[in-house]
């Protein structure tokens, strides 16, 4: 289905209404995303994920951010407030619920701002009605989802089940493994989502606490570089600011009623959102260096994972290596668009495919099973959920059991 896009020269359309090299009110220089990441010097910092979100937003020329407290994203949302007070953003306020916040974000995006917000767990589900609306209205809003459990009984701990609900909203869904990914994905996410041929919202997801509250080493580009601001007129739809003539359309019109019924429009509209997500591949591949990362992926034993599960798998592979068991690793960075062709290619020679996940349903395993031949090769797990941790020893044990090897039961 999905044609493999060649990694050619980096082609990203930057905003046309300010010039690269100009300075903003914070004395930062508008800089091309490629220069920020691939030319500027990167300095290591030891930061929590929440601080990393702040550092990314400082360099993104964001117009509006709307905040609402919910663990574990509250710190990040409050820190964005602090940099708003310093002058980095044009607008910032606390909304009254996630449903309202996502509406406020939509209003700001309709009006022509670059918009960023954060949410988590039950907040993501409360906001849910807005996400397909954002996508349908072609609003390139970025929401950072710091995953936590969504079910009753209540849990504030990480669980990626909420990402499953986001998969068919029409948003781009990326999954950060580490604080470094989180930083990179936030900045690059704006650029990809705002391309005129893409122009759909993006959810940059990370695992709560494991990323947000973990202090880790992150390479940052200089603070005096920032992205060019969003250009609302590089838009596949009219901007709702009465700066163009009054084109009579609602940005998401009722074409369903009475005499002007057109279900062909509705169907085509949905197809167009899906198409926009597909088009993002071309822009994402050069910026993220592919939709997946692969390490010894030609091996017969393969782990395919996203988010923190990748980190835990890296450790598990080290442990297995010590015992002479060689396992390859595939890290999926974008869940939407799903790297269908890439996964088909790298799993071609695998005899066993393990998909460790931090959720009870194993949605990533389902996604993989749906697209590869001989999918009985996929072992759905190991799983943890509800906020449990996934020690690398558990992955090791499960792989050995699956291979019929002897294991000593894990002592707790």
């Amino acid at each position, binding site marked *: 289905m999905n044609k493999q896009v060649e990694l050619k020269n980096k082609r990203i359309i930057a905003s046309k209404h300010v010039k690269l090299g100009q300075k903003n009110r914070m004395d930062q220089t508008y800089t091309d995303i490629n220069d920020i990441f691939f030319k500027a010097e990167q300095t290591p910092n030891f930061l929590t994920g929440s601080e990393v979100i702040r550092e990314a937003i400082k360099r993104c020329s964001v117009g509006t951010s709307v905040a609402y407290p919910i663990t574990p994203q509250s710190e990040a949302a409050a820190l964005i407030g602090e940099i708003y007070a310093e002058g980095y953003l044009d607008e910032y306020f606390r909304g009254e619920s996630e449903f309202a916040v996502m509406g406020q974000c939509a209003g700001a995006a309709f009006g022509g701002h670059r918009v960023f917000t954060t949410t988590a767990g039950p907040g993501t589900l409360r906001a849910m009605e807005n996400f397909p609306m954002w996508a349908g209205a072609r609003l390139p809003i970025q929401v950072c989802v710091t995953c936590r459990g969504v079910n009753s009984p209540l849990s504030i701990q990480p669980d990626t089940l909420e990402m499953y609900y986001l998969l068919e909203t029409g948003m781009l869904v990326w999954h950060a493994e580490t604080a470094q990914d989180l930083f990179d994905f936030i900045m690059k996410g704006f650029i990809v989502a705002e391309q005129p041929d893409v122009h759909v919202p993006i959810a940059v997801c990370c695992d709560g606490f494991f990323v947000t509250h973990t202090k880790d080493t992150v390479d940052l580009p200089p603070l005096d570089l920032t992205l060019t601001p969003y250009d609302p007129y590089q838009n596949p739809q009219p901007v709702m600011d009465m700066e163009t003539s009054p084109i009579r359309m609602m940005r998401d019109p009722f074409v369903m009623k009475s005499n002007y019924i057109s279900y062909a429009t509705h169907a085509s509209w949905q197809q167009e959102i899906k198409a926009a997500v597909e088009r993002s591949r071309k822009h994402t591949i050069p910026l993220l260096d592919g939709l997946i990362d692969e390490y010894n992926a030609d091996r017969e034993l393969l782990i395919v994972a996203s988010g923190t599960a*990748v980190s835990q798998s890296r450790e598990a592979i080290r442990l297995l290596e010590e015992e002479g068991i060689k396992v390859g690793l595939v890290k999926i960075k974008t869940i939407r668009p799903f790297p269908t062709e890439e996964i088909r290619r790298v799993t071609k020679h695998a005899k066993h495919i393990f998909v460790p996940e931090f959720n009870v349903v194993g949605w990533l395993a389902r996604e993989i099973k749906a697209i590869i031949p001989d999918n009985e090769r996929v072992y759905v797990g190991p799983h943890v959920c509800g906020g449990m941790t996934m*020690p690398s020893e558990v992955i090791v044990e499960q792989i050995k059991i699956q291979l019929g090897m002897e294991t000593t039961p894990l002592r707790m």
Partner: protein
Amino acid sequence: MSRMNIRISGLGGQGAVTAAHLLAMAANRDGRFSISNPFFGAEKRMAPAESYCRIGTERIYDRGELVFPDVIMVFHAQVITMQKSYTAPFYSGIKENGLVIINTPTDLLNKEDHQRLEDLNVKVLNHDATKLALEIGKTELSTNMAMIGACAGVTNIVTIKALDGALQERFGKKYVASGGTATLDEAIKKKYAKKEQLLQANMDTIIESYRLGKEWAEKQDLKLVEV
């Protein structure tokens, strides 16, 4: 590749999260790889709070609750007596040849606990951190300093110089903290009108504990993992 996994169990408000961050920051300054993260519920003061610090010679990816620690630090007696920890018993998962440092003036373990730890050749240091904190740091809030000092003294996992640097970084500049931690920071800052005094008192607590830890370690036949 070698790695030391440190698990810290305490009660909300004792600075367990700060302690793990400081150890990780110090290790980072020493040129090692480190990562630290907290684990807590939705409650605040006096509820179980855990934090984890992993220090190693190579890039560390492992995150989340630390199930198989080399070192366990217990910040409060209730972790043991009231089972206020996420794992029970508090030493579950400890690796062979491990180390347990407990903030207590007296032995809190029963015979069975001692036997199980001995079987794994795990050494136990009873370290009266709160007393040291009150004597040198002039506040109970420095208990975490006394604990990381002892940890560094016994394990050599971080240098005093690096701890000093980490302390300056943590309290010397604006720091991201959750609401509760921020309030505690304010309380301790109020106690010490001058920032240098606060840093000095904390450092003194660390150094004295470090000395005591080192002294104890020399008398033990420690086979702890070396990083």
